[in-house]
């Protein structure tokens, strides 16, 4: 916000014909005061770090919910003819498990890292639109809660996370579950879209001096790619969901076969979104690992440009492979062949990444800390998922594999063994930076081994279950098909996996209580490379003081170490001398908190309930949303009492008079909100 709400220089302002000093803010609502404590500060915060923490914490809560659903699934499948869940409940549970894990756990953890880390990695004060950032978070939270209230209001969605038409129609799924699924994901979709615009602008516009694109940390690069994928993928899902809503709520014929609808339309729209979705879940974890491996190998990443461009290539090629989810749907041999080939070759940039990571470790001095173990876990487990992925790309093979447990194994190796291992590693790595204390290393290593064991016991047997013909999404199986043994192994594994997640949560609290008796953790506990480690831990509210000037990749590392011409590394400065000292930050201009993001976000689930139960509720929700957006637009751009930069007194004159900029930002939010207009209007 510092940027858009900054005043105009005089030479441009003066010829306006209107005297600047008479220029009053449009604002009529007071903003909450800046301050970093108290529960209220969390509700009104626009600080990317707090929002990042809230994303992470919320995602972990949803992880427990989704994990509980997973345990229910595994217990049901422990033996033939399991009786824990009825068919109906089971179908809801696996649908909600998939939906929760994808939309409410993995994506938001990516968003948590992107929010917290990316501005630090590029040396920015905050994201481009701090209030929209808060809005994104609240939309995600309310969307997630809305989705899960379906359990209390007539049952969850029962169509699978992919919700194929026409099974998602009112005729075949008359309960409100799918309505909740639809509205909930529309709401979180708005959050993702707003977040994508926000983060892309941040990366493109707000880098520190000298931080050219090719000097950015790889996590930032992957965030950029990810957010572009979101930017373009979310609208496609929105289209599909709007069509579905029109069908279910207003009797349209988009998926009504009797009126000539083609059910494959849903499949295409869903997977055009769905496949980039897969990459946008995995790429942030790739970014984290690419930043962590060099730290613990004490070597630079092997082939920075290759790692970066392979990530970009994955993002780009990810748009040309969606129909590999539809090899058996009857799209015809030409389409099958084309998509089979594109899918095969997306393995190339992925393979490049694996090999470059391996080469990064080669010749290094490897320190097997918890983050390093999780990183290696990702490299190996993702390799398995990648290889089974290649076997799917072979379309004739896929006709035997698709919709069996072999696929379930594959994508869990990719999303759990890939994305989630990377994220847990990232939690261990960045915990000191965020909270100022280290997570216990021994518990961390135990956590890794337990998770690796549980993970493999759960999902490796699914490969063979699938190849032996066990279909996906079945609530029961009969004896005599040979599925008993490996299902039992998988269920045992699931409990081990659950215990490893609890060990992680235990570690958080255990380490926090222990941390009180330990010396405070320094700015750079890992001897790390990227500039977020230059600033004190936990990160000060103002991030950097001063903003560093970047001269190369791993800038912070090369402030500590020099590299001789023959590649030898020598220390040139003590870490304590190059890291920044905590300042009072009084002279730094930070965006002010605001009530309006949470207020206007709160209207959305009400509109959602309205579309399901009573259209009058939509009116109430709509008033809250629109009122919230107007309040947003009319709020003073800044807290006049907040600290300002004192270096440029000229700034002061009109600093709080930037109402039009506030309108611009408000208007911008309004634009983002057009995404949801079909709900308010339709």
């Amino acid at each position, binding site marked *: 916000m510092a940027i858009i709400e900054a005043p105009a220089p005089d030479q441009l302002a003066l010829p306006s014909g209107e005297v600047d000093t008479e220029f009053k803010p449009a604002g009529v609502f007071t903003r909450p005061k800046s301050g970093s404590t108290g529960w209220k500060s969390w509700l009104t915060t626009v600080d990317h770090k707090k929002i990042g923490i809230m994303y992470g914490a919320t995602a972990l809560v949803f992880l427990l919910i989704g994990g509980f659903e997973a345990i229910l699934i595994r217990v049901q499948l422990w033996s033939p*003819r399991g009786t824990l869940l009825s*068919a109906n409940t089971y*179908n809801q549970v696996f649908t909600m498990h998939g939906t929760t894990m994808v939309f409410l756990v993995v994506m938001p953890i990516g968003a948590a890292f992107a929010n917290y880390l990316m501005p630090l990695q590029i040396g920015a004060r905050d994201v481009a639109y701090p209030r929209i950032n808060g809005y994104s978070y609240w939309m995600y939270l309310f969307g997630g809660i809305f989705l899960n209230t379906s359990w209390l209001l007539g049952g969850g969605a029962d169509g699978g996370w992919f919700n194929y038409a*026409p*099974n998602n129609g009112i005729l075949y799924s008359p309960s409100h579950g799918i309505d909740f699924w639809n509205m909930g994901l529309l709401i979180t979709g708005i959050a993702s879209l707003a977040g994508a615009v926000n983060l892309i602008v941040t990366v493109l516009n707000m880098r520190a001096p000298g931080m050219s694109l090719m000097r950015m940390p790889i996590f930032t690069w992957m965030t950029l790619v990810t957010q572009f994928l979101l930017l373009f993928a979310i609208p496609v899902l929105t289209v599909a969901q709007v069509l579905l809503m029109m069908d279910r709520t207003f009797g349209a014929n988009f998926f009504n*076969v009797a009126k*000539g*609808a083609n059910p*494959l339309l849903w499949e295409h729209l869903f997977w055009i979104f769905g496949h980039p979705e897969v990459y946008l879940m995995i790429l942030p974890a790739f970014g984290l690992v690419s930043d962590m491996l060099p730290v613990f*190998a*004490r*070597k*630079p990443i*092997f*082939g920075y440009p*290759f790692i970066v461009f392979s990530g970009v290539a994955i993002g780009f090629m990810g748009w040309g492979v969606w129909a590999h989810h539809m090899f*058996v749907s009857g799209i015809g041999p030409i389409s099958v*062949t084309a998509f*089979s*080939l594109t899918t*095969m070759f997306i*393995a190339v940039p992925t*393979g*490049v990444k*694996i*090999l470059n990571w391996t*080469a990064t*470790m*080669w010749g*290094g*001095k*490897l320190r097997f800390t918890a983050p390093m173990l999780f990183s290696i876990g990702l*490299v190996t487990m993702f*390799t398995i998922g990648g290889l089974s992925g290649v076997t799917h790309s*072979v379309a*004739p*093979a896929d*006709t*035997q594999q698709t*919709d069996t447990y072999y696929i379930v194994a594959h994508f869990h190796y990719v999303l759990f063994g890939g994305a989630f291992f990377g994220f847990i590693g990232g939690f261990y790595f960045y915990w000191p930076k965020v909270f100022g204390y280290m997570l216990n290393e021994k518990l961390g290593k135990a956590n890794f*081994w*337990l998770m690796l064991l549980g993970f*493999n016991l759960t999902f*490796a*047997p699914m490969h*063979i279950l699938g*190849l032996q*013909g*066990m*279909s996906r999404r079945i*609530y029961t*199986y*009969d004896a*005599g*098909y*040979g599925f008993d043994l*490996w299902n039992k192994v998988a269920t045992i594994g699931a409990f081990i996996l659950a215990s490893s997640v609890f060990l992680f949560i235990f570690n958080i609290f255990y380490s926090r209580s222990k941390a009180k008796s330990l010396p405070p953790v320094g700015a750079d506990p890992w001897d790390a490379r990227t500039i977020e480690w230059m600033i004190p831990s936990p990160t000060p509210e103002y991030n950097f003081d001063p903003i560093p000037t970047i001269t190369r990749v791993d800038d912070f590392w090369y402030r500590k170490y020099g590299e001789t011409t023959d*590649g*030898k*590394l020598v220390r040139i400065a003590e870490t304590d001398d190059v890291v920044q000292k905590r300042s009072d930050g009084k002279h730094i201009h930070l965006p002010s908190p605001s009530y309006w993001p949470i207020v206007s976000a709160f209207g959305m689930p009400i509109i959602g309930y309205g579309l399901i139960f009573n259209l009058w509720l939509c009116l109430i929700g709509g008033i809250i949303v629109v009122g919230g957006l107007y309040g947003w637009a009319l709020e003073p751009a800044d807290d006049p009492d907040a600290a300002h930069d004192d270096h440029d007194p000229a700034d002061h004159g009109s600093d709080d008079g930037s109402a039009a900029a506030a309108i611009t930002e408000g208007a911008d939010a309004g634009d983002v909100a057009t995404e949801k207009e079909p709900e308010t209007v339709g």
Partner: protein
Amino acid sequence: MSRRSLGLRIFGAAVFAIIVALFAALIYGAFQNNGKPLDTFVPNGPSSQEIQNLVIPVFAIAGVVFVGVMGAVLLITWKFRTKTSDDPEAFPEQIHGRTGLEIGWTILPALILAGVAVGTVATIINLNKKVDGAIEVQVAGQQWWWQYKYDLNGDGNFDGPEDITTATEMVVPAGRAIQVTTTSNDVIHSFWIPGLNGKKDAVPGLRSPLKLEANDPGVYRGQCTEYCGLSHANMRMLVRAVTPSEYESWVANQLKGHAADPTDAKALAGKTTWKSLCAQCHVIKGVNDEKMKTATVPLTSGVAPDLTHLMTRGTFAGSILNLYDPVDPNDPSVTLPASDVAAAGDPGAALTGGTVDTSRVNRVSLEAWLRNPAAIKPNYAQGGRGMPNLGLTEVQIDELVAYLETLN
């Protein structure tokens, strides 16, 4: 690594050993086909064989890469680990990349995949080749069973008097190609007989081709693989490959109707019950096939399975229950040993219209089904999707079974 973390190291080593053992067991298990009825690695037809011929080398390549990468990572983590004796301020050589090497390992996988691509394209072309003189069968999925219509005279129409409509089981002659067309009466299903070919979705409003051919006579089981709602798990299918001569007699029998009343009084009473209750949804050719054309029952999914030749099938209720052969009386579902599942439910002479061996009829399952279908196969009978609980008395059930046993 201090001595204090010894326990952790032992734990890590143990986990590592377990995982290695797990993968060894899985790979071993993959090559054990103890008659697992849905195993994808036991091809018994030209199409599935074609797929197998492609899958094996692809899995082999994947296996080599797997071993290579895992080996490399293990080797590297061992070789380059920090030892306690190392100087903490000593650094490894700083390598920023080797462009040549990286281009190499970009091109190498691309080349390997190009090879795989060639095989893939060739296989896709082969699998989609039309076979002349194939038997045309339309397979329609419905919540939660399959309907088969044979176009015997090849006129492109599946509902002529010369054509056959049957359900649950598809009878085919071994060694002869079947051109299947999949479609659906309600939601998307997927038709999959792993032993004969890959799967093909049955999409409402769409007709998709699938080639099937069994090399040998036998029973080939399948499972619906596209999630299709409540009882998706209970939607199975079965292809019964028989000798060409058996097939001819089967066809001849299927073309007949059942106009004549059964001689047995109990069965006759059963027929009355059938006509008053079951006939609202089911068809027995020669009994109520005309009525079905003007049926007023609001069936979301069209119609219920054709029962004209029920006893020629080995299974019923979407192939989840065996119509023949004893089962554990305490469990109406099939709980026979794995090796028996493939062969279970043999209708014997009844297949071609011969006498029904009533001693072998699985009355336990049949009666349980009539007592309360939803208890065995959850459904939405009130929404017209699935068989309702008709509230039959035990006497009625007994009579009905007696009547059904005459439907050969």
